[in-house]
């Protein structure tokens, strides 16, 4: 007996799990999704060993055998099909037949018994080394929308460089009892946000890996703004929403002393409209060096002038009126670092830009949300 499942629901679940499968495909099974019958539903699981996701889909028939299929191909097939139902039937030797309307696909599966355990299972079973973090067991219960906002305001600043493993995730801590803080940095800029979460307390902090947090973030868009619970258990973070659970191994490593690099005070502060600054920097970026994206911000009495030069293309300048009466000076920044943070600040918001001189970090804040802080180091142009 095979599986018969609604195309719509199946596609939705596949889109959740297929983000996790290993793109590089060095281990074939990590490119596969495991499909198991569970109480009349099917359970889909995918993992890259660091992050795992599993979700259940109700279906007409759940079949009676577990099987695996290449996640990406399966997703593409289901996405392209027009029929309302998809049926999956195991053939001999892990071969699997897929039927959608009049289309048939024959695919090679892999032995489901070789499918690796989810990070949550392996950690809970204690098959791995004992947790080094002294058995943290904390839960963060928070409105889905608030958690999503915290992730959005930090995850973009995580280092893409996986060799800098201690910067490869978002740092979460209780900066004070009842207040959750997320911080991310790639060593050049840092983004930090605090939110009230009653009852939240923990010793020290944890680094949640970028990829896993990104997958978790997708889950928060589904199912309204109800509260969700992020569980931190030993080396593991997990979040369950409805029939879907994401779990991930926390990043081992020491998050740098981020407090030390946030300027206590800057010499000058100007307030600008987020939209105006964003648009002006986007325009200046057109002529900035393609490799370094350098733009110059020059402050003079009453004006902020944003400019860029390219020996090959030409130059761009744009002047904004600002309330400024300090010394004239100019500072260089990587335009992307400014554009990215402005991108996560809502439109029609005022932002403050704090600067001291051409070699000190700039600070961007939102007057209407003082729990957010962004620190960016200048670029020597």
């Amino acid at each position: 007996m095979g599986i018969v499942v609604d195309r719509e629901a199946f596609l939705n679940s596949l889109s959740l799990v297929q983000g996790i499968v290993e793109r590089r495909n060095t281990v074939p099974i990590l490119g596969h999704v495991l499909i198991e019958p569970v109480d009349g539903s099917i359970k889909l699981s995918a993992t890259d060993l660091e992050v795992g996701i599993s979700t259940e889909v109700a279906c007409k028939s759940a079949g009676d055998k577990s099987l695996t299929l290449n996640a990406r191909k399966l997703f593409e097939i289901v996405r392209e099909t027009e029929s309302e139902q998809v049926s999956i039937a195991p053939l001999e030797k892990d071969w699997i037949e897929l039927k959608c309307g009049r289309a048939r696909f024959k695919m090679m599966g892999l032995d489901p018994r070789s499918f690796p355990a989810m990070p949550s299972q392996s950690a809970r079973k204690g098959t791995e080394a004992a947790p080094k973090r002294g058995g943290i067991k904390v839960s963060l219960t928070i409105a889905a929308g608030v958690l999503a906002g915290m992730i959005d305001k930090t995850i973009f600043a995580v280092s893409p460089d996986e060799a800098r493993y201690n910067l490869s995730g978002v740092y979460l801590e209780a900066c004070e009892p009842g207040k959750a803080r997320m911080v991310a940095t790639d060593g050049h800029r840092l983004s930090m946000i605090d939110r009230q979460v009653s009852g939240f307390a923990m010793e020290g902090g944890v680094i949640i890996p970028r990829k896993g947090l990104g997958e978790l973030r997708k889950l928060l868009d589904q199912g309204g703004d109800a509260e969700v619970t992020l569980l931190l258990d030993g080396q593991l973070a997990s979040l369950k929403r409805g029939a879907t659970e994401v779990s991930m191994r926390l990043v081992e490593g020491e998050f740098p002393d981020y407090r030390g690099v946030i300027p206590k005070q800057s010499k000058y502060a100007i307030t600008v409209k987020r939209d105006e600054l964003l648009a002006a920097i986007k325009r200046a970026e057109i002529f900035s060096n393609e490799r370094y994206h350098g733009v110059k911000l020059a402050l003079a009495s009453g004006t902020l002038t944003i400019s860029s030069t390219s020996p090959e293309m030409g130059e761009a300048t744009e002047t904004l009126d600002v309330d400024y009466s300090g010394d004239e000076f100019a500072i260089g920044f990587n335009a992307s670092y400014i554009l990215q943070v402005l991108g996560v600040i809502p439109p029609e918001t005022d932002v403050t830009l704090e600067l001291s001189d051409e070699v000190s970090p700039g600070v961007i804040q939102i007057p209407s949300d003082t729990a957010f802080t962004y620190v960016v180091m200048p670029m020597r142009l």
Partner: protein
Amino acid sequence: MDAVCEISHPARVIAHADMDAFYASVEQLDNPALRGRPVIVGGRSNRGVVTSASYEARRYGVRSAMPTVQARRLCPDGVFVAGRMDRYVEVSRTVRSVFESFSPMVEPLSLDEAFIDLTGSERLLGPPLDVGRAMKRRMHEETGLVVSVGIAPTKMAAKILSDMSKPDGLLYLGAEYVTEFLAPLPVERLWGVGRVTLKKMHAAGIHTIGELAASEPAVLKAHFGSFGAHLHELANGIDPRPVIPDWQRKSYGEESTFPRDLERASLELRRILIAHGEALGRRLRSDRVRARTVTLKLKLARPLGEGRYPVLTRSFSLERPTDDGVEISNVALALLDRVREPDRIRLAGIHVHNLERSEPRQMGLFEASAAHPRDSKRERLNQALDSLAKRFGEETVTRGLARAERAAPTRRDK
């Protein structure tokens, strides 16, 4: 098909821009009382020479490099002022930035004069004469000073044109007219034709560039060797020398001859080297280049006769290129410590070469703990010192050990 596709190189477009009476004009700019009057910059003592004369003074026959005594005779009502090098250097930065706003390929010849390669910029900036006009306009807006500009397919022609155009001139010469333009000019307008060569030229019946151009290369070679062939090419408008911007130049150097010879182990010598290192660092940073090799040069106080002295050089190459004066002088001092010659020192200098262009550099949040803990601090210190020097003059802040006043370089290669 047999057709051969030939890619012809389009003619180069090179500007030579030269400020009119630079020092004197800066004096007139800063002191309105001097405007319209014959201003002569130079040593005020009668032993000095004129370094710059305003056009009002030139009407009396005063010229640069003329002894001050003679200038006083020619122009008794002239206003003689001592030069203010710091101020000229300061203005020259703006002058330079105006040049650089037209092309990254700027080869400065001195504080107030540069070649600017405009080849290929027509689409961006417009035809050469428009660029020349824009350059003159922007120079006047930014500095209040006047620049004369010659634009031609070769460096030599561009320079001759800017000279001819002065004051407040602009001349452009298309590639097809170069030889025609050069022909009637006296042969001494060619670079490299000095007094001796000129005499020989005249003896050979060559007086104009045109006559030189028409001469048999073989004959020239017999008279002047390979230099003859070079002059023949120049006379025919062939001058392939490229514009070499600062960041492509070969080296920087600072050296000074001492008023009295110094002991090799003296603190004074070390202080002078430290000051030279600082000055080099500043120049490298201002030109946005870094150097990999540091050379210490010493002239020993052991006369070899005919005013010659033995020169000793020692070099060391760094792992990473630097623009930091401290690092440069530290290398020079370490090299000095390895010198075993017993003689006193007459001249000391530092040269740096193996240059690389500094790329824009993103500063880091946690750099103090990174691989090169001192780098970023030093870099920030240097940047702060540079901006102080820019605002208040080079000697506002110096390192405790550096003795800038003694180390005022007697030679700066440019």
